[in-house]
């Protein structure tokens, strides 16, 4: 791609040829898989051809590749440059301003014509505005600790959000969907917790764990069984759920941690599947595919949430409201997320955390310095598993019902996608990725523009995992350190020979 720039006709020819080749590949890939749909009918399967869809996809590949070739790849002044430069602190040239202005104007005009383009225009404007605000802030206050401000602000918002929205709703009846927002936030926080736990294993210790959902399942089932069969309360079970998950982590990890990282990945995948199959078939303990229902909710220092009896609302003299229980659950998972991240933060400063990060960078060097890599890996694995177990216990108590259905590979993949997108090892990144990926998808479901483009039956939820997969590949190829790639290294040389970002980059091939 780095050939010297040739004359216009040469460039056009090369670009056309390349785009044709890409279209040809796309046609070969999609002619059967997308061009035909298998439909159940009376006499067995029949085929339904979809030539329009096929032509649209192949055409999109051709046009996209052609435009990329002409304006981005085969030119020394790519059209994407102004957009990238907007997010740096370099001064914008006149051409940059012209390009950005033209794009803004074009998308504004297009949104006047078709409602579908409004969606794209909205994205473009959001991008430009965020970039402009970022530049303005950096221009006037260049040396503020932004990561810290962001973290503190986020935590403050998370603490205040349920109470304020609840009180506002009660006082003014604004019609806020408080219940919905809280439920969604709880789901986001659960994924944040899972992402933080997996981040210890994948991001810090560099061990690819594809079966994280197993620990989630162990935590959920140990809580459910302890609570149902032994009558223990949530707060008594929570440590046990974490402990059992950690124990399971050790059992899985011990045999394979001596081996190369790739083996660990596939063994964890296999073990997670074993856990799911056992849960599905060990009927007299787990109730098989029917799952366990009626799992008790956590109590507020022994006070249950309910309408009658010695309940939370009765004790504090409040009128009973089902939202109290949900707000309480929100704070429980919020607390768990905070604890997970505080523990991670402290662990990173301890010798063990340093050893994790060193091991991720170079295992052989680590071993030659006298670090027992098996023990180091095992601690990372067990710590991650423990947090997964906590999250599982919380999941069980919140749902009140668990079944093996909730613990499939797709769940592991979602959690891994959150960690990868947030940036391996970046705690703030994982939190943001959980919000964007779980909350963002929920928002997409309510976006009208998509329905205009793809028809009224369009359900983005169907495409969720597909987009997660694409995002994982794109992020790894384009920015291997995640969207937020300015992860501060734990240790920096006193006299820096490069920028911290350079030091944080991994050099190992």
């Amino acid at each position, binding site marked *: 791609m780095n050939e010297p720039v040739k004359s216009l006709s040469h460039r056009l020819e090369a670009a056309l040829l390349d785009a044709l080749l890409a279209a040809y*590949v796309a046609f*070969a*890939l999609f*002619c*059967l*898989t*997308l061009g*035909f*749909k*298998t439909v159940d009918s009376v006499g*067995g*399967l*029949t*085929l339904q051809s979809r030539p329009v869809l096929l032509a649209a996809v192949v055409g999109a590949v051709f046009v996209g590749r052609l435009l990329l070739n002409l304006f981005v790849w085969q030119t020394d002044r790519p059209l994407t440059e102004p957009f990238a430069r907007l997010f740096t602190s370099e001064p914008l040239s006149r051409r940059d301003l012209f390009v950005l202005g033209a794009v803004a104007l074009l998308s504004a005009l297009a949104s006047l014509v078709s409602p579908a383009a409004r969606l794209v225009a909205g994205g473009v404007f959001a991008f430009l505005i965020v970039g402009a605000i970022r530049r303005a802030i950096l221009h006037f206050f260049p040396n503020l600790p932004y990561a810290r401000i962001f973290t503190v602000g986020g935590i403050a918002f998370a603490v205040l959000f349920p109470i304020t929205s609840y009180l506002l709703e009660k006082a003014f009846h604004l019609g806020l969907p408080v219940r919905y927002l809280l439920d969604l936030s709880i789901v986001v926080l659960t994924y944040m917790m899972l992402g933080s736990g997996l981040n210890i294993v994948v991001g810090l210790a*560099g061990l*690819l764990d*594809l079966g994280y959902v197993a620990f989630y399942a162990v935590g959920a089932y140990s809580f459910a069984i302890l609570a149902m069969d032994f009558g223990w309360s949530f707060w008594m079970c929570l440590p046990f759920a974490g402990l059992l998950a950690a124990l399971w982590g050790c059992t899985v990890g011990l*045999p*394979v941690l001596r*081996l*190369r*990282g*790739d*083996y660990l*990945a*596939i*063994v964890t*995948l*296999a*073990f997670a*599947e*074993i856990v799911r*199959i056992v849960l*599905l*078939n060990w009927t007299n303990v787990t109730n098989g595919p029917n799952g366990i229902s009626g799992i008790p909710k956590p109590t507020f220092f022994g006070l249950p949430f309910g309408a009658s009896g010695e309940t939370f609302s009765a004790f504090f003299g409040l009128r009973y409201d089902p939202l109290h229980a949900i707000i309480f659950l929100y704070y429980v998972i919020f607390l768990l997320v905070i604890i997970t991240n505080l523990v991670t933060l402290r662990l990173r400063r301890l010798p063990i955390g340093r050893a994790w990060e060193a091991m991720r960078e170079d295992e*052989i060097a680590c071993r030659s310095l006298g670090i027992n890599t098996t023990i180091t890996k095992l601690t990372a694995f067990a710590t991650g598993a423990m947090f997964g177990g906590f999250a599982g216990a919380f999941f069980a108590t919140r749902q009140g019902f668990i079944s093996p259905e909730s613990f499939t*590979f*797709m769940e592991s*993949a979602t959690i*891994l*996608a959150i960690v*990868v997108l947030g940036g*391996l090892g970046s705690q703030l990144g994982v939190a943001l990725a959980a919000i964007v990926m779980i909350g963002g998808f929920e928002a997409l479901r309510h976006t009208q523009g998509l329905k205009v483009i793809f028809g009224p039956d369009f359900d983005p939820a*169907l*495409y969720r*995992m*597909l987009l*997660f*997969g*694409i*995002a*994982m*590949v794109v992020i*790894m*190829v384009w920015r*291997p350190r995640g969207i937020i790639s300015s992860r501060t290294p734990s240790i920096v040389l006193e006299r820096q020979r490069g920028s911290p970002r350079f030091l944080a980059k*991994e*050099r*190992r*091939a």
Partner: protein
Amino acid sequence: MAYFLQQLVNGIALGSIYGLIAIGYTMVYGIIGMINFAHGDIFMVGAFIALIAFLLIMSLGLTLVPLALVLVLIVAMLLTAMWGWTVERIAYRPLRESFRLAPLITAIGMSIILQNFIQVAQGARVKPLQPVVTGGYQIFNAGGFAVNLSNIQILIVLTTVVLMGVFSLIITRTALGRAQRACEQDRMMAALSGVNVDRTISLTFVMGAALAAVAGLLYLLYYGVIDFFIGFVAGIKAFTAAVLGGIGSLPGAMLGGLIIGLIETFWSAYFTIEYKDVAAFSMLAVVLIFFPSGLLGRPEVEKV
């Protein structure tokens, strides 16, 4: 005894399919030292391409089954090879010099993409196909229990043996095979002596995917039902087979495939069918603990 023989026959047929998939894992691992997690899903895509190609050819009016199957085989191998090539080009080649975890993550991403692409494009329901290759022979009859060798089982074993032969010849006798073995030993040195490393790696993926397509077609004919999720479990089992046989070794992959197929069949026949996957997956852990270099593999030495 008759029951045992029948299970043996079934196990060998199933094992051949696993062996064909395992070759893809083992070749890629041999040449670039990474597990291609998306390979199981390439197998699944291959099965879908075969299904659609078969239905298409049938609807075009070709009713001669053997000819149709040969056509389907060629189409499926070509188109699935294209998928293998594309996956390598998009997800692995740009990351060849990146850090160790990066290609593993893109491989998982690709696996998710393929699964969900097929789910979105073809629907999540299982796809049944009426039996195409029917009939068979009764080879043994003991006390009313007949041991059957069906035509499809013969077809599976024959196809596998032929393909194994062809691919062994390619690896040992052709310039491409020599280039592959050279890249396996030392990629830098191979490049210096004029081997086009990128092309060789691409062709390895293409070959692996083509074999996976054959496995997909055979799976479709054998079981008569596929869905978008078959690649996941079959992929882990084939990988287990590759590890068991010694990863990087072609005959090892075949041998491992046969052993895994037999273990699974006998486990379902004599113990519990619910836990057959558990048996195969536990095998993976057992092999990795006790003999990580596999039956026919060489122990791995990590160079600094």
